[in-house]
């Protein structure tokens, strides 16, 4: 099924087209969400929401970009929204703990282990993901799309709706920040 046929089928509400869409993109969407969120269950939830969003919004897809670019864009947006929401809840929980009797322990997740990392690199990669978690959103996104998802500068620029030189700049700054934080690690 070509991309045009796929889009046409989705607009007709054909289940076969939707199944083909999910089969074709589920790994890309999940891997991207996993790299950004560093949590398996959350990545699965977000991946599901991405496909639901695509299903609902396919009529609005203007085909000015590739279907894959559009799907990656939705994945990044939903993942970052989820991260912001988590941070807000964490901040609110901290304030409650100051003023209330609520002394529930804060759940600290274990180190994140990406399943695709080579065995000999797992320990170092877990440390790297910890410092990736501290990067600003745009640097984090560019770094994950490049290093975890393996996308080139052109694709990342299309997803982030920017230029290739801007992507290069983001990646350079991301690497500088990561090195700086690793030199200070542990904080």
């Amino acid at each position, binding site marked *: 099924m070509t991309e045009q046929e796929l889009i046409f089928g989705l607009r007709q509400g054909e289940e076969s087209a939707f199944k083909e869409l999910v089969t074709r993109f589920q790994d890309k969407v999940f891997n991207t969400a996993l790299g950004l969120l560093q949590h398996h269950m959350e990545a699965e939830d977000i991946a599901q929401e991405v496909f639901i969003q695509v299903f609902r919004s396919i009529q609005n897809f203007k085909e000015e970009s590739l279907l894959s670019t559009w799907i990656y864009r939705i994945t990044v947006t939903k993942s970052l929204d989820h991260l912001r929401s988590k941070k807000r809840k964490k901040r609110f929980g901290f304030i409650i703990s100051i003023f209330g009797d609520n002394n529930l322990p804060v759940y600290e997740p274990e180190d994140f282990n990406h399943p695709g990392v080579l065995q000999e690199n797992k320990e170092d990669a877990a440390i790297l993901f910890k410092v990736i978690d501290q990067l600003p959103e745009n640097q984090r996104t560019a770094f994950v799309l490049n*290093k975890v998802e393996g996308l080139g500068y052109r694709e990342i620029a299309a997803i982030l709706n920017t230029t290739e030189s801007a992507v290069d700049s983001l990646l350079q700054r991301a690497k500088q920040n990561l090195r700086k934080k690793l030199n200070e690690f542990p904080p």
Partner: protein
Amino acid sequence: MQKKFSQQKVLGIMESLQGIQPAAAPDFFYTRLKGKMQPAERKKTFFMLRPAFITAVLSVFLIMNVVSLISIRKGAKEPVSMQSNKPATIESFAAAYNINTGSFYE
């Protein structure tokens, strides 16, 4: 005091994602996705059973009843004499009930 990483260690960490393979979506991802989409479709059909809708309908009926009651009470409070322009007389009473007021002897 915990030792900081050496430059070599930092370099090793920075390159730890080399050769990374993309993670595969969990098993039965499509099945779970379809399951998640089902309740959303069901909710659309039963919107009339939603508490918000039922409350709105009941409120409309309640308002209509209150307005009707107020109108009826206003009508009941007005004196009989003000209900019509004509003063209440025995002749008008008789006319209303079609009673012949003529004397038997006329």
